[in-house]
Structures are given as C-alpha cells and as structure tokens.
C-alpha cells in the first residue's frame, strides 16, 4: 500500500510556501511540503514523496545506523553464529 519514494529537495519554491522542487535520480517534480511545515526543510534534505506530497523527512543518521547494523551482521558473521547459539543456552 502506498508507494513512497525518497527524493532530494533541490529548491524551495518562493511563489508558493508549500511547494518544493524535488529530484528523484534527476527527475523533477514540485511536491507539496505542507505536511512537513514544522521540519524547516532545506535544499539537500531528503523526503518521502507520496501522491505529490512529502510525508516525512528522511533521517540520514537512522539510515546509516540501519545499514551499519546489516554490515555488522556480515562482518561478525562466523563468530556471530556461535554467539547466537551460546545466547540460546543462557
């Protein structure tokens, strides 16, 4: 349900307080940012776009944390398995 696509704010459109030009891989569309009024969006911010509206500001720190978690799983792969088995016993 609900196709949401990450896009980068490239310009706040002066002629309309609720509009921002957003880029998705170089594809541009004006997006209504009225639902994110409290977020003080700036060019360079990433937002989640759904039916022409920005629903959420994307948190890069959280994205990195998520990827770090996955990378961590891979790095510690071998001994992680043993650790998991050990944690099962306790």
């Amino acid at each position: 349900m609900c196709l949401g696509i990450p896009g980068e704010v490239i310009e706040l459109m002066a002629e309309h307080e609720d509009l921002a030009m957003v880029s998705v891989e170089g594809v541009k569309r004006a997006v209504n940012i009225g639902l994110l009024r409290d977020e003080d969006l700036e060019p360079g911010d990433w937002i989640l776009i759904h039916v022409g509206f920005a629903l959420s500001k994307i948190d890069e720190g959280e994205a990195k944390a998520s990827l770090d978690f996955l990378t961590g799983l891979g790095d510690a792969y071998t001994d992680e398995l043993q650790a998991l088995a050990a944690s099962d016993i306790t």
Partner: protein
Amino acid sequence: MTQKIGHNMPTRANWAEEAVAAAAAEEAQLAHAETQHPRTGSEHLTREEQVLARIAKARARKARIKEERITLAHGAGGKATQTLIEAVFLDAFRNPVLEKLEDGAQLAPMWTNGTAAGRLAFTTDSYVVSPLFFPGGDIGDLAVNGTVNDLAMCGARPLFLSCGFILEEGFPVADLQRIVASMAAAADAAGVQIVTGDTKVVERGKADGLYINTAGVGVLEREVVLSAAAARPGDVVLVSGPIGDHGITVMLARGELDIFADIVSDTAPLHEISARLLDVAGDGVRLLRDATRGGVATICNEVATAAQVAVVLDEASLPVRPVVNGASELLGIDPLYVACEGRLVAVVAPDRADAALAALRAHPLGEGAAAIGTIKDDPPGLVLLRTAFGGTRIVDLLVGDPLPRIC
C-alpha cells in the same frame, strides 16, 4: 443540488458469476476428458504444480474478447491487444503469412509465368502519439522510423513507404509542414522513398490533431529467416541500448504528471544496425524485434510463447538510464514494459553472441548494447527475471498500459 441517479443497479456482479460458471464447466469437461484418456506422469505433480498446469491450460485457451467495447487496453500492446488480434483479426483474415504475427509479412510473389519475383517484406503501422511533438522527435519521425524498423526487423532492406494522413479540421498547416519535413528527413536518413499517399480530413473533435499511417516494402536479400519461434535453448538475448527512453519522454511531455526530466525519445531507424548485426551473426540470428509498445518484456513473452522456451533475463544487465529509472520509481511502473522507438532486441545463437554484441556496440545507435538474458528449455512459455537483489520472478504480459500507481 442533490439528484437521484443509478436506478436498476445490480446487486450481483453478473459478469463475475458467468466467468466462474464458464470456468467450472470447462474444468469439468477437461476432468472428464482426463478420466477417458488418463495421461501418465501427472500423478507425480504436487498440488501446486497441478494448479499451475491447470492455469497453463486456461492460458492456452482460444482468445475471446470479453469486453463489450474497445478500451484503451486493447491498444496497449499487452494481453488485451493480443486477445483482440487473435480473436478478431486473425480469426477473420487467417492465412499462413499472417498467422506468424511477425513485425512484417514475408512474401515470395511469383510472376504469372511461374518464376519467383524475389522475396519481399511488407508491413504497416499507424501513429497516434500525443503530444505530436516531444523532445527528440515528433509523430513524423515515428511514422517513418517505425515502419522502417518493422521492415528491418524482418531482415529486409527497406525501400518504399506509403503514407496516409487523417487530419482534423482546424489543424495548423504550419504544424503539418513541420511534421512532413521530419518525415522527409527521416526517410532520407533511412534511405527510403515515400512513393504514394492519401489524405483525409475529419470534422473538428473527431481526431486528435492528426493520425498517420505508413506502410512499407523492403527486399529480403539474405537467406536468414527470422522468427520468434526460432529461438532455442542456449541462445543469448541482446538489446541495442538503454530501454524506456521514448515511453518515459512521451509520458512526461504530456504534462499531466508535472514531472520533468532531461530525457529525449530514442526514435531512430534501425536498418543499418540490424544489417551490421546480420552481417556478422548471419543465420545465428534467430529473430529481431524493435521494442515498441509493451517494451522488452512483451517481446520476450512473444519469444517464450512462440518457441515454447523459457527466457531468463538478468535484471542487473538491463541497460536503463537513471532518469528513466527515477521516473519509473516515481510512477510505480516497470521500465521493462516501457516503449522504445529505436531499440532492437535480438536473440542470437551462443557462438555468435559475442560478435553480435560487438557489432551492435560498434554502431552509434548501439553504444549501450548489452546481453540481457538467455534462452532455456524449461519452464516453457515463461519469462523469468533474476532480480538484481538475487531473487527470481516472472515477467508476464501486462493486461494494458503500464499505469502510474500510488499503492
């Protein structure tokens, strides 16, 4: 302001009840036939496989139009178009040449004294694009290149084109002149002459500016016979460049989506690049198709069905420009189904694949050419995609146009 509407609303979906009843009857008939002539082997199938076999049977049924009226889906190049062609046109006009349903007819006319008059390819196509002018081309370029390409995909050297114009009352003459100039330039570039034509004018509101029909004749000078049915296991699937540029360009140029991207149509004549390909790969080339309506996915499905093979595509190898990808993500559509007007798909024998790919890449129109998949023997009739993520899925025919989705 309130008003009463919609009297006589049904409380049951009759079309659905009928479909259920019809399928049940058919199933009963099949089951009966099965008990009369039991086949061996089927008892080893799992329940899921039995269901899949049942579906394969249902899909192989004779095409039948269920709609009372033509909808836009019938023109989109997917399942609905195939059904229309098979159930209405093929049924009425059936003959061995038409039955092949290739991009053009391959003819071997005879003189009255019984000697062969050479082999010809003959094709026709109508152009109804909106808007008429778009980045990278206009309806005139399409009308020439499209027909030239259909001939080239038969392995023919395109020679002569006809053109028919249906003009709407009020259409600006300057626009017509611009379009005709594009056609002249495109014909020149493709080495064809427009040798006959026709013009009709319809009342305002009865056509969307103008429609163009072109037909084309070319000579088949090579021995090679190209056909979707010729693909065999081990063959390699090639595409001559990035896919989806034309479809996305036109979709954005309509302006309704308010989406902007730096992208132009790929419309181009493919007669040269296809000739180069045939020069180096010769009878190793099984078939050529230009990936127009329905995109690469639809061509692969035609191959899978006609040759009863599996087409296995590799998502990571598919050439797609970032902007086409971006627009597709935004709209929720799949570039595999988006039209191109200057890209060909070739299925080539494995021992010629490298040479064929090199020949494509050596031509300016084929710089982005890539090997995108292989032909396997099983499961027949299916197009499979090895996803970039490392999974597998089917690439089926679409029912109609790829529609932007929100969900």
